[in-house]
């Protein structure tokens, strides 16, 4: 096997994997504070990309401004989703909450279809499309953007959870919401914050991905599923495991597509996941005390 081909697949895998990782990160942030799996997470990713395209075309904004505005917009939508759809039903059984988030994802997708139609849209790469050649593999500048921004976001979150009062309060909610509220943490505020952060992270992922794989109203479905898979792969409830799970999934998928068959690349991700679930259901980086009955 040719090393430059392998490198090329690795780079592609890392790029895709970073966006899976960012989606997975969004899942875990919400799961940790609320215990809810938010099936609308993929829709936040879609909104990031679509809104950037729209702000550039409709308002004639330069790309950086459009991107920032899109991410802010998606974050506000995240807050809106929490306020309108999640808070009124927070005492319902988990399966009802799952159904509601599925309803939210259908609703957002439907709205997106009304606003943007069924066409695919493209976003310009942030710094041109002249590939950089490294050891015979062509690396697009956008790839560096994806990797760089993901890394910055990840370190930023790490810092947020370990060094800020809000971050620590959110962690406290994830361990025991009742105890957290007893020591004076406003749990509902933390829940809203977690929805906003995960929408932000998802939207950033969508913005980064849009120049690479085009975007349309329904890209959120598969991305959401892959993100969920990455989350379980890394260990549900562990944000950094989730990010790592996304990278692993992306790389394996890219290698599988390159060396086995591109038709089955989506299936491969889920086959790996099933095998892992049957062998080590707590995920690669999950807690050891996971109960398997």
């Amino acid at each position, binding site marked *: 096997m040719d090393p430059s081909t392998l490198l090329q697949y690795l780079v592609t895998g890392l790029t895709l994997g970073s966006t899976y990782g960012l989606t997975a990160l969004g899942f875990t942030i919400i799961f940790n504070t609320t215990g809810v799996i938010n099936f609308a997470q993929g829709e936040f990713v879609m909104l990031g990309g679509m809104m950037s395209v729209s702000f550039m075309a409709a308002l004639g904004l330069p790309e950086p401004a459009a991107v920032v505005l899109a991410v802010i917009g998606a974050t506000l939508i995240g807050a809106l989703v929490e306020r309108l759809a999640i808070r009124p039903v927070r005492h319902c059984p988990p399966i009802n909450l799952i159904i509601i988030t599925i309803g939210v994802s259908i*609703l957002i997708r439907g709205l997106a279809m009304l606003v943007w139609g069924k066409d695919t849209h493209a976003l310009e790469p942030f710094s041109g499309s002249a590939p950089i050649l490294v050891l015979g593999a062509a690396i697009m500048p956008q790839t560096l953007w994806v990797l760089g921004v993901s890394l910055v976001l990840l370190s930023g979150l790490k810092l947020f959870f370990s060094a800020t009062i809000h971050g620590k309060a959110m962690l406290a909610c994830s361990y025991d919401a009742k105890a957290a509220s007893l020591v004076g943490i406003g749990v509902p505020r933390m829940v809203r914050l977690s929805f906003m952060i995960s929408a932000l992270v998802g939207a950033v992922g969508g913005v980064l991905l849009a120049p690479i794989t085009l975007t349309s109203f329904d890209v959120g479905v598969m991305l959401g599923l892959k993100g969920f898979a990455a989350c379980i792969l890394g260990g549900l409830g562990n944000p950094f495991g989730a990010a790592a799970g996304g990278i692993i999934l992306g790389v394996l998928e890219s290698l599988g597509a390159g060396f086995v068959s591109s038709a089955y690349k989506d299936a491969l991700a889920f086959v790996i996941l099933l095998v892992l679930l049957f062998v080590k259901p707590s995920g690669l980086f999950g807690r050891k005390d996971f109960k398997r009955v």
Partner: protein
Amino acid sequence: MRWLAGLFFLLMTVPLILPNNYYLTVLILCCLHAMNAVGLCLLVGHAGQISLGHAGFHGLGAYASAYLSTTVGLSVGWSMLAAVGLTAVVSALVGLPSLKLKGHYLAMATLGFGIILSILFTETVDITGGPAGFVGIPRLSLFGWELTRDIALYRFVVVILCVMVWLSFNLIHSRLGRALRALHTSEKAAQAMGVDIANHKLFVFVLSAVFSAASGSIYAHYLTFIAPASFGFTFSVELIVMVVLGGMVSIPGAIVGAFFITVLPEFLRAFENVEILLFGLILILSMMFMPDGLAGGWNRLWAWIAARAKGAAHG
């Protein structure tokens, strides 16, 4: 069980007042979806095991039956039986490791399996016809008895649905049903009481897969055309929604949920692009205001009316 007789009578007489065949098609689809929902109600509502992959079993029944009758040339009756049998075996093989998982993990495992199946339906072009679909499937006929007219097929579907409901109803009220409810509440307590939880869970999982496969194979021989798009993740979600909307533990609720979710898009079609949006909105609102489903909503409405009537009588 009186309601089952009522349901049978109602379903059998409804076609007499229908203006055209289009409504009959919708009714047949409703009944086929109801079969899925009843099986899933046993699994999700009674045994407490979520599955996000049942569209895969539905598709497996449809594709296996289509392949056996069209490509292999088996008679339709035997193809359908073989397809259901195959799905039972596959679901048992998947269920053995999956059912050791719980909650989100079980949801993910079944979801992953469903997606793998739907990708197989799309990619194994030689067997399934790929994304373009499987065409030329023979119409339903059972061992020399041809169901050429839609109304005959409809009656057959109603009979099968009612048999499934009857079986499920008896199951719920048997020792097994009580064991299932026990393990739904607490697996540990159920085990301590001597319930063989692994076998019970597997049995219900296979049974629900069999219901889905039977429904899928009838679907294939009714439409004579199937495509992978009908058996994807979205349909698995729709099936869960039918059960949850119906009220989870209620079999009549699951049937009502199935009819509601099947008929809804037909009504919303008038709104074209707004259809999908309204579907999402209806899901959210019904979950918010009827957390225990249509069945629970109905009970509460009934209690409210009864209370008002009583109040009126007294005062």
